Each structure stands twice: as C-alpha cells, then as structure tokens.
C-alpha cells in the first residue's frame, strides 16, 4: 500500500516539477511549484518526517510561494516575449545541461560506494516533531534563545531602516475641527464691482 502511495506522489511530483519549467505562463509555473512542494511534503510524511512536511507547507507554500505569486501578478509579464530567443540561447543551455548531467552521473556513480546510513531508522519510536522539540527546548535552549534575539534584532533593523517618522500622513484633530469659527476659514474681501463688458 505504502509503495503505491509513494509512486503516486512521486509521479505527481515529477510531473509538477517538469511542468514548472515547461509551462509558458509564470503564474502557472508558480502554481505547479506549489503542487511539487505538496507532493514532496507527502513523501516526507511517508518517511515519518512529519515536522519537515509541515514546515515545508507552512514556510514554502504558505509564505514564500504566496509572496512569489503576488510579485508575479503585480509585474504583469508579457508572456509572448518569454518565448523568444530559444534557438539563440540553445547552445549555452545545452552546454550547461550537459555539465549538470555529467555531475549527476558522477554523484550517482560515487554513491553506491558510500556506506549505508544507519541513523535514520532509529528515530521511529518518537515522532520527530516531539524529538526535535525535546532537544530544541532542553539541550539547545541557549542557541535557541540567541536565535530569538537575532530575529528580534532583524525586526528592529527592518523597522528602523524603513520607518520614516516624518511621513506625509495626515491626522485629524477633532477638537480643533469642532471649535473652528467662521472667521478662521472665510475671509471677506471688499472689492470694487467690475463693469460688464
């Protein structure tokens, strides 16, 4: 059963990943990327790595991809111009592709020589969110607190650098509006009347 589920999600993942680079419309590409993230999260769940699965969905799908889509939609990209230049750039692209293919072959070639990892199976007794939480708030509480301070500094920095105190924001002052008198707003000027031509 688990094999069928795995192959199902793996197929969806491969399909979505290849569509990300083949569709012409960037918005569609981003949506396919979301699908790819979901499928890989599902595969992680099959490996009982539920923390990574949830983090992937929350961080990447929930925050990063939404921002990505916002930007894409705001930019209003001309889809037709993206199709140009395929032939012109083909030699460079083919070269880069060949290099990457070679690297992949080398990596896979060297892979079977490595000893098999042992650690992964030992964790299954405890859910890994719990296991992470256990060390994060006990053994690693000190780095955890420092990381919190770093995030606070990042927040202070972002506000200090972008907030301009003298903005053009306009405020209402109701007490002045209520107590205003006619003389404050209207000035009556006496002028000699002009004759009609």
């Amino acid at each position: 059963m688990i094999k069928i589920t795995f192959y199902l999600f793996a197929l969806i993942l491969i399909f979505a990943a290849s569509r990300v680079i083949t569709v012409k419309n960037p918005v569609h590409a981003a949506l396919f990327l979301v699908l790819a993230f979901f499928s890989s999260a599902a595969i992680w769940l099959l490996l009982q790595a539920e923390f990574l699965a949830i983090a992937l969905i929350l961080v990447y799908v929930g925050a990063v991809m939404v921002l990505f889509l916002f930007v894409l939609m705001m930019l209003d990209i001309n889809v037709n111009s993206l199709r140009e230049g395929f032939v012109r750039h083909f030699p460079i692209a083919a070269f880069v592709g060949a290099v990457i293919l070679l690297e992949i072959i080398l990596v896979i070639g060297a892979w079977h020589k490595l000893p098999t990892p042992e650690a992964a199976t030992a964790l299954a007794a405890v859910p890994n969110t719990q296991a992470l939480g256990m060390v994060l708030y006990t053994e690693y509480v000190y780095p955890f607190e420092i990381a919190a301070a770093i995030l606070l500094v990042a927040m202070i920095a972002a506000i200090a650098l972008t907030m301009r105190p003298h903005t053009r924001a306009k405020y209402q002052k109701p007490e002045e509006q209520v107590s205003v008198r006619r003389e404050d707003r209207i000035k009556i000027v006496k002028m000699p009347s002009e004759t009609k031509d």
Partner: protein
Amino acid sequence: MEIATLNLNMLGLLPEIVLLTMACLILVIDAYLPKHQRYLTYQLTQGTLIGTALLIFASFPEQRVLAMNDMFISDPMGAVLKLFIVLMVFFAFIYSREYLRDRNILKGEYFVLGLFAVLGMMIMVSAHSLLTVYLGLELLSLSLYTMIAMHHKSQTASEAAMKYFVLGAIASGMLLYGMSMLYGVTGTLDLTRLAQTINQIANDHTVSVAILEKISEIKNDNIAVIAIGQQITENAGGATAAIAQILSENTDNTAAIAAIKPIIDQTMQSYTILLFGLVFVIIGVAFKLGAVPFHVWIPDVYQGAPTAVTLFIASAPKIAAFAMLMRLLVDGLQGLQVDWQNILILLSILSMATGNIIAIAQTNIKRMLAYSTIAHVGYLMLGVLTGTQEGYAASMFYVVVYALMTLGAFGMIILLSRAGFEADQLDDFKGLNERNSWYAALMLIVMLSMAGMPPMIGFWAKWSVLAQVIDAGFIWLAIVAVMFAIIGAFYYLRIIKLMYFEKAEDKTPIEANIDMRIALSANALIILLLGIMPQTLMVVCLGALGVS
C-alpha cells in the same frame, strides 16, 4: 522519552540575561517616550552597561565553568574581555551622542542595537560550541549593519552598510562551511570534545605518516613493521590502536600492510578535511578581524559609516573577534597548531605590510585609521601564532590597548566635527595646537601610542608581542614586524606635524559637552598612565590566561 539531564547553571549567564532583558525593556520604553524625553534612552543604556559591568565583576569566575549544556563557558579570560568590551562601548556611546544628534540620527534604536551588539560580543566571548560562536557573531554583525545603515540621508553610509553586509554574509558562509567540515569529521560541536577528537586525529596522522615512510624504506623485513607496532602502542587510541592491534596480530608483512592500508587512508582523508575546515574557519575569523587579504571592506566601511558608528565598529568588536580567534583556534583546534601557525604568520606579515604602506597614501583620516587597524591586526596575531599562554596574553594585551587607542583617535575626529562638517580629512587637524592645545596634546598621546613610541602603552603592546615572537624562535618575523612599525610611524607622526607645525585654516572654536571632554581626556590619559605602569594591565592579561 527521557529528557537528557540538563546542566543549565544559569547563574553564570546573569550579565547576559540582564543585558538582554534591559535591551528589550529599553526598546519598549523608548517607543512610548515623548520626543523631548528621549535622552532617557541614552541614560538607561549607559546605566545598563554599568550594571552589566558590575555583574561581570561580581561574578568573576575563578576557573573554567561550563553552563547551558556546555555551550557557554565562563573563564577569567572571557570575563576580562567582556569587561573591556562593555567599557569600550560605554565610552563609544558617550562620544557618539552629540555627533548623532547634530546629524539628526539620534534614535533610541541606535542604543538598543548597540546593546544587542554587546550581547552578541559577550556570547562570542563565552562561546564553547561552534554553534554559539556563529550565533553570537551573527547577532553582532546584524546589529552593526543596521547601525551603519540607519543614516538614511548619507549615500556613503548606505554604500558602506551594503558592502559590509554582502562581504560579511560571504565571510559568515565561509565560517559555517569550515565549521560543517569540522563537524563532519569530528561529529561534535562542543569545543572541548572537538579539541580531543582533533588531537586524536592529528596524532593518528603523525603515526600514519611515520608508518608510510617506514613501509617505503623496508620492503621485506618482517621484524621492522612489527617493531613499529610495538612502538606505537605506547600512546595508542583511535586509529593508532587499531593499527597497533593489526600489526601485533599479523606476522606476515604484506598481509599486515594490506590490513592497515584502509585505516591509514581513512586517517589521511580525515586530516585533509580537517585542514580544509581549518582554512575556512580562519578565513571567517580573518574577515572579522580585517586581516589581509580579507581586509577590503575595512577602508570603505570605516570611511563611509558615520564616525560614531566607525568608532563603535573599530573598538569593541575587535576584542570580540580576538576572543573568537582564541575560542576557535586555541580551545577548539589546538591539535592543528602547527598548521594554523603558518597561516597566521602569512596573514600577519601581509596585514602589517599592506596596512602600514597603504596608510601613508591616505588623505582621509578615517581611511588612514582603517589601514592602521589592518596593520594593528597583523601585530595582534603575532602573539597568538606563538601558541603559548604568554603569547596569548600578549595578544590580549595588544587588542585591549588597540581598542583603547582607536577609541581615542575616532573620539578626536568626533570632537572636531560639528553639524555639517565631518573633520575627516588630515588637513582638518592642521594647527590644532593653536586652536586648543589641550586637545592637541591628547591627540599627540594617542598618535604616539599608535606609532608605538615609549612611554605610551602602544609601545608596551608592540614590545610584548615582539618579545613573545622572539621567545618562540621567530627572530626574522620580529625583525619584519619592527621594520613595518617604523614605516607605520611616519603617518602617525605626520598628524603630529600637522597639529603643531602648520597654520590653522579653520578657526571655529571646538565645542563639546562636558561628559565628552572628560571621557576623551580620561581616555588619552589612561593611555599615558598605562604606558608608565604597563604591568598593571599585563598582570590582568596574564592572570586571565592562567599565567602567574
């Protein structure tokens, strides 16, 4: 699931905890203060620094104590360095307040970020794990980037912040890369355990090299290889023990060699990865210190940043960077001392040469002091590279003295500058003696000290590192260092000449707050007084490193 037994021992972190709490409090208080009461932020910040210093002093550790699951260490060296960091920042804030107000960048966030930077430095100083070294460094760097960039209206400040940020991020990446290699080989982040594992691997490596040499010498002599096996059982452990075991069991030479071959290969490989890790870690630290060839950010950042921030960056963070060097190289990588000694010698010579020679060509005093910093970093590393406790103490002495002198020099630039005028050209110091002879005398003390003239403390700082270098047997290195010190004296003396023998072009009276004047005078007088009694500071440094 059982919870690992925790060794938090939070009392040792009291200064850090108080500092963090106060920084958060000041942040909130500042947001609600009406505009005309903003000076309270400054006073609270200075009060916090004094409180932190008192707490560090009160909880001064007698020996090494670990806390927070061995990720935090409090030892005499750390406590002394932290005290000096807090002191330097206290002075830096006194100098910078008026400068910032004149340029309309006096904000509460500046002081809050300064406090966070101090926290980052204290974490670095007390780090006992690669993880905390890195996190402390990031906390410090992030605060510094922002402090530079806060001067929105200045193009140069934005440029400086950008350069510092990008180069700093690359350096952090290098440091992390090196740390990941060290972790990959040793499997630990804890500095003491790291040191043990590395000692083991370095030991195995020596044995392996010896065996490989023997094997190439003797081909068919059974007794010889087995004899090696008997020799190395004396200091056995790890791969060495395994090799000894195989050698003692096998009587056939070729079989024995075939059996130990994979173990030797493995050791060689681990050692190579360790060396790569070491190089990347040194790159990261050298960047933070500003040693050549990782110095390119220093002149641009020092010149571009508002002088008050330059003052901040140039003083206390250098002490923290020294602490980082000590924690990583001495506490963690002592086993590779032979290797890092050579790297440091190279960095040190390059820094002394580049810094001292290029500084001569500068017309901007901030830029000139930036190159002078690079040169000083070269001298500072001289003590560390000897690899002895006395050498470390000499370097510690040097870095404290350097921070004190830099504080005085940049404080002087701030004193001369006013709203709309930066006083960052050498010519702005022309005829300072006519304008105010007291300030000229203070600058004279600072410059003589930087040049390393007796009886100023700068002389004793150079003398102590050079003495250690000679003790360690590097007489040629000491000669090179003295040569560059003589070259370097030129540009410090030029400022003295400008102050005393040139006519003043700018006759504006020099005005400053009373606290600024007192602090600056005290700063220069301390340099002079310590120069007359250098043993007071030297005893503190020696004591901090456990040398009596």
